[in-house]
């Protein structure tokens, strides 16, 4: 271990003096992550704010449930109630709004109008219409208002189906309106945890910070392992091998330096992207486990490449090609998990894919979710590393 550490220390000293090591290990991934981060940052800090004007001409239980229960329960939505549809329409018309700058109230983003008799019509199963008028200058907020009303209408339809089912079962008339509103206001006893991929996605900034970090990790680690071939080219390998140390120490030293360079690179990127672009990698312990496993995988794969390469140049060329393929396959540049089908499945052939999946899974704040990605990456590293080390050991010659 002493000799391996001596070799690793020497390698680290050389890397510290090598500008290209900073570029590959830190500048390039950080630069790309920052570029993507600044482009995407406005979305990452998005918080909805809207002002909706409501004309509840019905004043019934169903309309009040929406106004008070739905709209009133959302932070960021300001509700202005008016008595007539005309007032509501005026408030979303920027040209004629009487509530403009003169009274210190801005125009509303959308107007929602419940017609007279709305609740009764819902009960009697007559067609009902909720009118939503959007402000032309607030397309996003108006769209959200439409979506909320559509969602509520869907809920009402479901309640009406549920009420009809009860009637059939008990054979008695049910107060539909009372039951419907009651059902709407009762918390659903079944909590559905949405585990679809979309809820476990990394936000854009974090996605690119992590993607660039893991992508360049393979190139960072590569320079450490191919250092073996460099020592052979420059003639220093003969001196290492004539020293009273084992070949395992020579290999171990190179791998240790590659591991430490990879670790420092990932740590710098983790801290820098967290501070600079507010990337949220997830719980640190989970991230650390994923990073360590990713470094092991990178060293393993680079070792097998170096083990079969005939020269340093060949190892670098093959390493770059394979690093690019694994990076793209693993979805470090675009989220292939959203692509579905074969492409989404193929990402698990790459340690990059497991790393990104592990980070996405960490959104749940449950550390146990990293076990499978960590084991998968370790398996990549150990299998390829065993073959690579065996080849490299045999190839250790002056």
């Amino acid at each position, binding site marked *: 271990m002493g*000799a391996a550490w*001596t*070799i690793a220390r*020497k390698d680290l*000293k*050389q890397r510290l*003096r*090598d500008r290209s090591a900073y570029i590959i290990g830190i500048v390039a991934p950080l630069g790309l992550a920052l570029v993507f981060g600044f482009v995407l940052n406005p979305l990452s800090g998005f918080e909805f704010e809207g002002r909706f004007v409501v004309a509840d001409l019905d004043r019934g239980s169903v309309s009040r449930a929406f106004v008070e229960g739905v709209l009133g329960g959302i932070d960021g939505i300001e509700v202005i109630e008016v008595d007539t549809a005309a007032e509501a329409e005026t408030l979303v018309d920027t040209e004629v709004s009487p509530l403009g700058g003169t009274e210190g109230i801005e125009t509303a983003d959308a107007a929602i109008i419940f017609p007279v008799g709305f609740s009764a019509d819902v009960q009697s199963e007559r067609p009902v219409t909720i009118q939503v008028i959007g402000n032309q200058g607030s397309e996003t907020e108006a769209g959200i208002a439409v979506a909320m009303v559509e969602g509520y209408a869907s809920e009402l339809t479901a309640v009406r189906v549920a009420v009809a089912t009860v009637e059939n079962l008990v054979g008695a008339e049910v107060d539909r309106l009372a039951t419907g509103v009651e059902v709407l206001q009762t918390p659903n006893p079944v909590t559905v945890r949405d585990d679809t991929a979309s809820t476990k996605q990394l936000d854009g900034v974090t996605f690119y910070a992590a993607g660039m970090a893991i992508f360049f990790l393979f190139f960072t680690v590569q320079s450490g392992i191919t250092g073996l071939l460099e020592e052979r080219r*420059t*003639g*220093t390998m*003969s*001196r*290492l*091998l*004539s*020293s*009273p*140390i*084992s*070949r395992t120490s020579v290999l171990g030293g190179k791998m240790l330096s590659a591991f430490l360079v990879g670790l420092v690179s990932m740590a710098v990127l983790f801290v820098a992207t967290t501070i600079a672009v507010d990337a949220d990698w997830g719980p640190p312990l989970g991230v650390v486990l994923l990073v360590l496993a990713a470094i092991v995988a990178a060293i393993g794969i680079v070792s097998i490449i170096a083990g079969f390469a005939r020269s340093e140049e060949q190892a670098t060329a093959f390493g770059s090609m394979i690093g690019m393929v694994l990076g793209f396959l693993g979805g470090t540049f675009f989220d292939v998990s959203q692509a579905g089908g074969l492409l989404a499945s193929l990402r698990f052939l790459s340690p990059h894919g497991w790393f990104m999946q592990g980070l996405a899974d960490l959104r749940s704040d449950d550390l146990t979710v990293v076990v499978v990605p960590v084991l998968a990456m370790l398996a990549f590293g150990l299998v390829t590393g065993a073959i690579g080390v065996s080849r490299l050991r045999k190839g250790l*010659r*002056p």
Partner: protein
Amino acid sequence: MTATPGEPVLECSGISKSFGEHAAVTGLAFSVAPGETYGLLGPNGAGKTTTISMIAGLLEPDAGEIRLAGEPMNPDATHTKRLVGLVPQDLAIYPDLDAVENLEFFGQLQGMKGAELERRVAEVLDIIELTDRAQDRTEHYSGGMKRRLNIGVGLLHRPTLLILDEPTVGVDPQSRNAILDSVERLGEEGMAVLYTTHYMEEAERLCDRIGIVDQGKLIAEGTQADLIRIVGQRDRLTLTATGSLAATASALGELEAVDDAGVSGDEVVLIVDRAHDHLPRILEIAARTGSMVKSVNVDSADLESVFLKLTGRALRE
């Protein structure tokens, strides 16, 4: 661990090494005594570097045995490797480290540390005359300075046997002389040195005994005087010429006074008994066989003559 009195520092017994179909070294056997400077002299490709690679534990011999101070040497013999200081033909130093860092790194690999290492690094820097440039990265050194540091690394741990593989290749005359002076001093201080070269003058100047190697085989061994006795008191006559040199060499080889005749570049090299007596006849044959002689040089017998006598080829072919 050092050689006990009377025991050779290095003993090679019938070592062989092949690379595929090519036999690089065949049945080589020689030994080096404590304090002796032993030269392996031979042309490029003779098997010198393969031989020292096996002695330094870089390569495993296919056959035969190597012992250093009685201990077997092979690539896994880490304990025995402590006895060897290798100075490879290529510059085995790190250009992005300075001289001190290079020496300290290789010293640590030899198990040296702390004050002992620091003291020895300073001593070696003094020996190789690089104390003033010790803190400069070696990439800024001249070729000669790099060569000296390359030797210094080999000396650092006071090896029982210092192996120098063609240490003056590509070095300017001044640096070359400084290197040879250093090796002479090491020999005088009692360090056993194994020195490979294809420069006859270096072997003549430095070595107590010389082994002549050709095509992987040791074809002669002894002191310089022993080896020269092989060719007797014959002279080496060199004709620098243009034209049909091979035909001239062939014709001259037929003369009774000519022991050996060969061609090296634009020279016809002859081993001749009393060359001055036969010079007119030799020049006449050269002209008749189509060679235009530009100059003639006659030297008394040396290692070059020995090599020519033994192989029929010039040393630097």
